[in-house]
């Protein structure tokens, strides 16, 4: 792996920026370089939210990207916006609970994850992002699932073991 450029995208309140930050924290554990740049502006719950994440073995110059290796789309508008940025051979993760239209590209790898439905089955709609993050970690070579587990453990331990367990269960739920 040399350099991986990606977008995490969805709507405000889905924990999109959290996904990007967890990916960067996992990269740090692996002694990799990373940058995270959130869209910021008139964002609000229900509005659009996205972040640009780069994870690399070497120093990262531009934190702004014009093409991507990976896109994680949690809503339909975010798929429409970011699918075209994927390089041929790139990876697209779709939250099929909320994305009912098919992607246009045939030169990319697609993972369909019903993240929101799984989250609802697990009794907490807010953990769809962690379910998707598990799918992301297991199906790319960007960060390891073990690093992501450690970050999630450290991030939620202050809220108690129960919250940590719920998140770790969510992380490992979807096996594709």
């Amino acid at each position, binding site marked *: 792996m040399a350099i991986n450029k990606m977008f995490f995208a969805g709507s405000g309140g889905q924990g999109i920026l959290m996904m990007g*930050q967890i990916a*960067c*924290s996992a990269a*740090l*554990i692996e*002694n990799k*370089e*990373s*940058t*995270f*740049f*959130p869209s*910021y*502006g008139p964002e609000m719950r229900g509005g659009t939210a996205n972040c640009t994440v780069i994870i690399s073995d070497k120093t*990262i*110059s*531009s*934190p*702004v*990207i*014009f093409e991507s290796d990976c896109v994680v789309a949690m809503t339909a508008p975010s798929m429409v916006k970011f699918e075209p940025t994927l390089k041929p051979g790139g990876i697209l993760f779709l939250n099929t609970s909320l994305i009912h239209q098919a992607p246009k590209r045939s030169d990319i790898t697609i993972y369909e994850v019903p993240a929101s439905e799984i989250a609802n089955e697990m009794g907490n709609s807010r953990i769809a992002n962690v379910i998707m993050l598990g799918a992301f970690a297991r199906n790319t070579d960007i960060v390891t699932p073990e690093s992501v587990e450690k970050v999630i453990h450290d991030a939620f331990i202050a809220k108690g073991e129960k919250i940590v367990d719920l998140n770790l269960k969510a992380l490992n739920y979807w096996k594709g």
Partner: protein
Amino acid sequence: MNKKVLMKGNEAFSEAAIRGGCRYYFGYPITPQNEIPEYMSHQLPKVGGHFIQAESELAAVYMAYGAGAAGGRVFITSSSPGIALMQEGFSFLCSAEVPTVCLTVSRCGPGIGGIQPGQADYLQATRGGGNGDYKIPVFAPENLQEGVDLVYEAMELSDELRNPIFIFADGLLGQMMEPVLLPESREVICPSNIRTQKPWALTGYGADDSQRNRVLSLRMYPEELEQHVEKLFKKYDKAEKELVRYEAIGVEDADVVIAAFGSVARIAKEAIEILAAQNIKAGLIRPISLWPYPYEAFDMITDKTKVVISAEMSMGQMMQDVKLGVRDRFPVRLINRTGGMIPTSIEIAERTKKILEETGGQ
């Protein structure tokens, strides 16, 4: 174990200020730097420091004047329109020789403009908007580590120089996250040692107990004010020689040299890699000090170069200094975005290629 921590720019700059010895912060909220007052409000009290949300930016800069005159180590921050409101205070701080570190996380203008990144406050920062003859050293980081190091260093430099120091970041650096290595906490100037460390400060006594200190910017007698301004400019002349900083990459054998600062410089570095893959040699001059400007860096450019480009998020404010550095030896062109649009590396690379073709290059 990696000792680096993943931090947001605004929070990393704040922590650097605290570790640099800042114990007084005054500010008024404005995007995209709101994480700074938030961070300072909960972290400064933990180390015995003081956070005050001022009623306006003008109030904040004068609170800095007061705390700085009393010997405290002060940090103030804002973003473009807020920095505009502080301009009067910067002139007063310089005149009264009160140390203060000021950070702008600049956004796009003019007017209230927008909240996305911009560099169109270059002239505001380097030329100033306050009255009278004064100078403020300005440093512009390209990444969070450099920003942390510059804020940390500025805390000391400002005291040494008895002058404000300005750090010019932008919304991209303020909002982004990347791993940083934080410096060790410095020993803090506290009320009990202010008199020895800053004998000029207002502690109620003079250094030798004989007369009280005065920190002022009003001088009614022309002879006295002229002497004072000349004294200030001796200080600025020294700073102008000693504080010049820049990074130069591949300038000597470049077909084209790009000058860029701050976040645009790191985007330009990727553009230079794209151009190299197409056998176009592009060099980079990255001013770190915006005042004093590294004019001498442009003397390294050889006759092999066809054109010099200023890449920036403004309508060409830095290009004025690039032209002063180039001294008509080469044509100077602009690659810019404004309004909060951030140029991508591919865009800078393609526009550079086009300019090179137009100016008789490849």
